[in-house]
């Protein structure tokens, strides 16, 4: 199956083409089914390729598929080439697997939407782009996928673009990503300048040519790129706004796959990071800070999807923390576990929103466990996973990250463990508010002007009784819940099939080895467990019974550390003032003045010269005569002197 690796990308692309040409004619269920089947087939080929890859021996265990030469220009030879190794294989499997489930879920969730085929068209294009990103064997192919997922994210966030907030959220996502892309592009340029190749393997083989300063520069530029894509400080506010998109989009793009592209990219260039300890430390600090800040914000959000969005930012911060420590496998482990449980949580939230007829306000939920039993059970598994309660996957994955952080940077470990406490707390708050307590969805609620909910699209009247989602939406929930609970087995111990062993050919010596004594490991694991359980208990006890409390969290947290206001003041307002200055001064005075000035000058000189054109023949004749006399006089004087 490795020889048809290209099919993994081509199938979703084919689905995209089919939907683009005949999507409208296919109509409501058919378009979704076609899209789902394409992604599902892609997953099956991925599984086949995985078993083929197992038989490929040697180190590094990899397979390269050369498709065509894309840009043959002198020294710049860029090939459309796919590179399959354990890292990209893992990404392919979980991207296509989760995509299939979320496509299936979307068939139910998007039911009745007027743009039903268009939704699946974008989703298929997104999956294809994500796979290009993952499978690219050089930076430029990766960049194509990188931009593709960015564009699809924009289209899908602003999918309900008739809503003002959705349209501007799409723009915001795109612009933040563009800022990051500048960094990625500059990193590509600098790499090519030094190595004269963009192939990852060639770059890694020629690290000596780059020089240590430039390696750090490339890493930091790439970090700027992944900050945008993976919503790290300071480029994270777009992810919360991106929740304006349909919930399956939030689950697929803004939780499971696209936002982890940054983590993947940093793992892909691990030899560069390994060679620059200062860049690695920067990554770790950025990750730790993001994890903590986003977790504090998540504690104060009132919109169910915003809590999950900031939680995603926080978990991505953990992954960056792991990468910064050199624990790439731990980052990948958390990425996979997170993809399962966060995808599950988002789909569960979607089921809640669906059941409550598009209500997203946590204060208007409550006691849903009685009405949405399946959603409650599956969501509950996701909640305990992300809260890192043993023995679920979150405990193992987060524990792996924290153990490595403890060994590498104990200071950041403190940040990590505090964040873990916050994570358990805010997720329990979310669960308590949504599934326990009294049902508040039948009450009239005054609009709270201080929150983002005030400008939400839905009316704040009483909601009809919630209903459980159809089977097509609950099946993916069950499957994801199963994997979310058991993903911890992936790296349970250093057995032959563990993630560490599987990834060994990729990372090899660059992987950070945390040498912890057994006692330390046990102590850390017990600390993690206690922290998780304390967080869960506190969160549940506080929020299970009451929704209205004197604000434990100030407006500072509710408004996400005023980061949007800060950017508005620092970048937005000055830009607006500059634009206003350009519009009122530079444009009319300088530009129009210049253009009009030239015209005035031409007209003035013209009106002077046109006086000579009288139209009277005698004037012209006089001119000729004078001219002749002048020429003759000149000739005569010349004659005279000689």
């Amino acid at each position, binding site marked *: 199956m490795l020889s048809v690796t290209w099919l993994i990308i081509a199938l979703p692309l084919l689905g995209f083409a089919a939907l683009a040409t005949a999507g409208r004619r296919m109509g409501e269920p058919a378009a979704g089914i076609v899209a789902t089947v394409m992604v599902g087939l892609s997953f099956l080929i991925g599984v086949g390729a995985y078993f083929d890859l197992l038989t490929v021996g040697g180190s590094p265990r990899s397979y390269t598929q050369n498709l065509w030469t894309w840009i043959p220009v002198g020294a710049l030879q860029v090939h459309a080439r796919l590179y399959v190794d354990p890292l990209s294989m893992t990404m392919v499997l979980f991207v296509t697997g989760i995509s299939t489930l979320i496509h299936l879920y979307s068939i139910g969730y998007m039911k009745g939407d007027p743009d039903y085929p268009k939704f699946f068209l974008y989703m298929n294009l997104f999956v294809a782009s994500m796979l290009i990103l993952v499978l690219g064997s050089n930076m430029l192919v990766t960049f194509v996928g990188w931009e593709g997922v960015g564009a699809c994210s924009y289209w899908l966030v602003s999918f309900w673009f008739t809503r003002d907030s959705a349209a501007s959220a799409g723009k915001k996502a795109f612009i933040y990503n563009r800022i990051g892309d500048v960094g990625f592009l500059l990193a590509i340029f600098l790499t090519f300048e030094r190595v004269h190749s963009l192939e990852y393997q060639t770059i890694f083989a020629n690290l000596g040519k780059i020089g240590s300063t430039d390696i750090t520069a490339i890493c930091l530029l790439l970090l700027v790129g992944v900050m945008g894509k993976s919503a790290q400080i300071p480029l994270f506010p777009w992810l919360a706004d991106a929740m304006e998109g349909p919930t399956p989009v939030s689950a697929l793009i803004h939780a499971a796959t696209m936002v982890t592209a940054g983590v993947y990219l940093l793992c892909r260039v691990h030899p560069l990071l390994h060679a620059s300890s200062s860049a690695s430390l920067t990554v770790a600090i950025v990750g730790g800070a993001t994890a903590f800040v986003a977790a504090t914000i998540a504690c104060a959000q009132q919109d169910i999807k915003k809590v999950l969005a900031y939680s995603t930012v926080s978990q991505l911060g953990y992954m960056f923390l792991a990468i910064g420590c050199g624990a790439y496998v731990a980052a990948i482990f958390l990425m996979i576990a997170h993809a399962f449980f966060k995808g599950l949580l988002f789909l569960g939230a979607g089921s809640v929103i669906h059941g409550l007829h598009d209500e997203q306000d946590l204060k208007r939920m409550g006691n849903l466990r009685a009405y949405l039993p399946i959603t409650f059970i599956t969501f509950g598994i996701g909640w305990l996973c992300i809260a890192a309660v043993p023995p679920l996957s979150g405990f193992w994955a987060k524990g792996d990250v924290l153990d490595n952080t403890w060994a590498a940077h104990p200071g950041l470990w403190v940040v990590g463990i505090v964040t873990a406490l916050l994570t358990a707390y805010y997720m329990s708050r979310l669960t308590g508010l949504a599934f326990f307590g009294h049902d508040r969805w039948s009450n009239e609620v005054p609009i709270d002007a201080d929150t983002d909910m005030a400008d939400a699209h839905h009316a704040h009247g009483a909601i009809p009784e919630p209903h459980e989602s159809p089977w097509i939406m609950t099946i993916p929930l069950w499957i994801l819940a199963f994997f979310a609970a058991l993903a911890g087995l992936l790296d349970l111990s250093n057995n032959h099939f563990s993630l560490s062993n599987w990834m060994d050919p990729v990372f090899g010596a660059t992987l950070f080895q945390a040498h912890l004594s057994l006692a330390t490991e046990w102590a850390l694991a017990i600390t993690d467990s206690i922290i998780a359980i304390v967080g869960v208990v506190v969160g549940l006890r506080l929020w299970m019974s009451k929704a209205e409390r004197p604000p434990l969290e100030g407006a500072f947290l509710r408004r996400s550390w005023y980061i949007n206001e800060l950017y508005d003041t620092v970048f937005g307002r000055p830009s607006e003032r500059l634009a206003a200055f350009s519009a009122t001064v530079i444009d009319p005075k300088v530009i129009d003045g210049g253009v009009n000035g030239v015209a005035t000058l031409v007209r003035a000189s013209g009106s002077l*010269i*046109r*006086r*000579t*054109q*009288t*139209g*009277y*023949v*005698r004037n012209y*004749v*006089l001119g000729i*005569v004078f001219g002749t006399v002048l020429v003759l006089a000149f000739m005569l004087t010349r004659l005279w002197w000689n």
Partner: protein
Amino acid sequence: MTINPDWYLALSVVLFAIGALGVLVRRNVLVMFMCVELMLNAANLSFVTFARMLHDIGGQVLVFFVLVVAAAEVVVGLGIVVAIFRRRTNATADDLHLMKG
């Protein structure tokens, strides 16, 4: 009896000056036309004179060219004049100043 060639040249100059002055001061298109012819023939006279003085047949040859060109010019010019007079009566040169800038 031979006449000094200078006199021919002097006559040519006088004729030319009369022609030029005529073009400058007269308003009647036909008269201006005749003045132009006068200037051309003044030039012809000087050509012939110099041909005689310098014993060069080239000057006399050039006269024929001038005559031919003058004839052609008269055809075109008179054609324009007739066309103008068809559209308006009693046109002087100053009335025809459509080319005023």
